[in-house]
């Protein structure tokens, strides 16, 4: 570190009462370190316990499972770093899929039209969430809890009104299906493993998000509005626009996952998606994101989603009752919160004297 060398020669009196930090403290100060350790432990655990978990195809299935949560979690992580919360993301996924399917099916038009329309709807819901939170100053927890119930009810009510049942019509014979299926749900066969395109999308979104957070000024603004919105506003950061943008990002990624579900399964159950909003939040928190905002990163959130994928399938591979999965997830969350608290103390307790 030539930085510190310069420091000590320029002003010895200042530098002498500061403690030099070793690499271990620097490493511990990273948000994702707890999640990384947990991921390795869990991987070794299932690797030792479940023979089928050791095979390559299982690893790619885990990746796919992780991507179904991970894509939205990328957005939820950014939103939480920005100091807000979204409970409506889980059902929004289903709303987007249902809108797309029913609109195209009822009018008998190309699926691309319904897909575009559902994108507009999703972004509109994201905007509304953000606008209401910023305009009223009511915590996003309450605003999005409201949106969550509205969407959950509307998903079932509208679907029943339109189709007479609680599932969307099968759309696999309609125009545009093949291209959309390829875009959102294609499976690449590589040797004996299957790689779903969502894994690639997840990777792409994660890299983009990491780039935005670390290297662009919008990323700087996101950390600032989450860390201290009043300070950010005082130095000219457009707090309202940043936060609305974050809600819309979550909505966009929710729409994307909704399109995957639709074009992968062709039929959607209107009651699906409830509860997933917590999985996104857990992935972000396990990945080291602070619930209070201003701290976290994309790699951590991705590892959080990967842990979700490993445990949900690992339990099946190990031959256990899958009902235990939720209990396991709860323990993970509690551990993560405690570890995060400890790590945050370590990383901010550097001040000496």
């Amino acid at each position: 570190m030539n930085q510190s060398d310069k420091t000590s020669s320029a002003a010895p009196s200042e530098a002498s009462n500061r403690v030099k930090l070793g690499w271990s403290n620097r490493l511990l100060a990273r948000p994702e370190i707890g999640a990384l350790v947990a991921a390795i432990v869990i991987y070794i655990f299932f690797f030792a316990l479940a023979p089928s978990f050791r095979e390559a195809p299982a690893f790619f299935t885990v990746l796919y499972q992780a991507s179904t949560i991970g894509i939205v979690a990328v957005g939820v992580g950014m939103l939480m770093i920005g100091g807000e919360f979204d409970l409506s993301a889980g059902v929004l996924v289903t709303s987007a899929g249902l809108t797309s399917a029913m609109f195209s099916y009822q009018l008998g038009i190309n699926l691309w039209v319904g897909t575009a329309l559902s994108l507009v709807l999703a972004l509109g819901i994201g905007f509304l969430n953000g606008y209401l939170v910023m305009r009223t100053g009511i915590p996003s927890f309450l605003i999005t809890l409201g949106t969550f119930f509205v969407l959950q009810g509307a998903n079932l009510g509208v679907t029943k009104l339109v189709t007479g049942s609680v599932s969307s019509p099968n759309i696999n014979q309609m125009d545009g299906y093949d291209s959309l299926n390829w875009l959102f749900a294609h499976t690449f066969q590589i040797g004996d493993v299957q790689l779903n395109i969502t894994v690639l999308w997840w990777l792409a979104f994660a890299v983009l998000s990491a780039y935005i957070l670390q290297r662009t000024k919008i990323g700087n603004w996101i950390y600032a509005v989450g860390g201290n919105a009043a300070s950010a506003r005082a130095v000219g950061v457009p707090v309202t626009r940043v936060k609305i943008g974050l809600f819309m990002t979550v909505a966009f990624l929710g729409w994307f996952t909704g399109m995957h579900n639709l074009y992968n399964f062709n039929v959607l159950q209107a009651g699906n998606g409830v509860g997933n909003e917590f999985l996104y939040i857990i992935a972000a928190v396990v990945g080291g994101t602070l619930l209070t905002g201003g701290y976290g990163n994309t790699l951590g959130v991705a590892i959080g989603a990967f842990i979700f994928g490993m445990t949900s399938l690992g339990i099946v591979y190990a031959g256990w009752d899958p009902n235990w999965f939720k209990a396991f997830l709860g323990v993970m969350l509690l551990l993560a919160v405690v570890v995060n608290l400890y790590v945050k103390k370590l990383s901010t307790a550097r001040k000496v004297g």
Partner: protein
Amino acid sequence: MTDTMHSADPSRKGSTLIQMTDVGKSYGAIRALKGINLKVNAGEVTCVLGDNGAGKSTLIKIMAGLHDHNEGTMIVNGDEVTFSSPRDALAAGIATVYQDLAVVGLMETWRNFFLGSELVRGRFPLASMQIKDMKAIADEELRKMGVVVKDIDQPIGTLSGGQRQCVAIARAVYFGAKVLILDEPTAALGVKQSGVVLKYVAAARDAGLGVVFITHNPHHAYLVGDHFVILKLGQAVLDESRDEVTLDELTRQMAGGDELTELSHELKELGGMTAAVRTLEADSKRR
């Protein structure tokens, strides 16, 4: 971009940057500020003193763009203005350093330094920040102010209170502020830390900035001030330049002045003259 004082022009020392005439502000039926006349000159420190609730915060929020005034006129750089956001004020060269919300604690020092004015290269949404340059400039500028941080990457929350204020001041100076508003920069600081901050106030003044220094400590004000305004209940009760007022006068006004004399009489009448009241009375007679 390494020249610190690039926009402040020392040759224009003494020129008027902000002129407030008869400015007032009401929140609904409550009048927080009335008939304020204030001039901020380049290369001078204007001190605004007052007790809690005297209207100091309202006054600076008008200049900083957090509130708009609804009476009187404010002329900045020759144009009459009403700011509707901090961005407007910043664009007019008015930077404000708040006591409690100067920085984002969990963010790295260099990110805080450039927050809201990041150096970027490329097209907007994905334009990449020039992180290496930003770190180097932040380090260099802080060093100029005598703030030596161990590691420009450390969260700014780990710096001392005085250092955080200095980072905020250095940032405002670097980004070409013509007017620097400091909201009680020494209120939460110890003696030594306050001294450090006061040095930067003087440094900013010598660099040709107009400084508005808000405080309730007359001793701090008198060390650096060129002009003093004391607010009470939203109105100016004293408005003098340095050669027209003594530190004792400032202190007496701030301590309550005539009200204090009155209070000591009242306490006396209530019976028994305690030692404290006796001292107060002797004190006010002496002045």
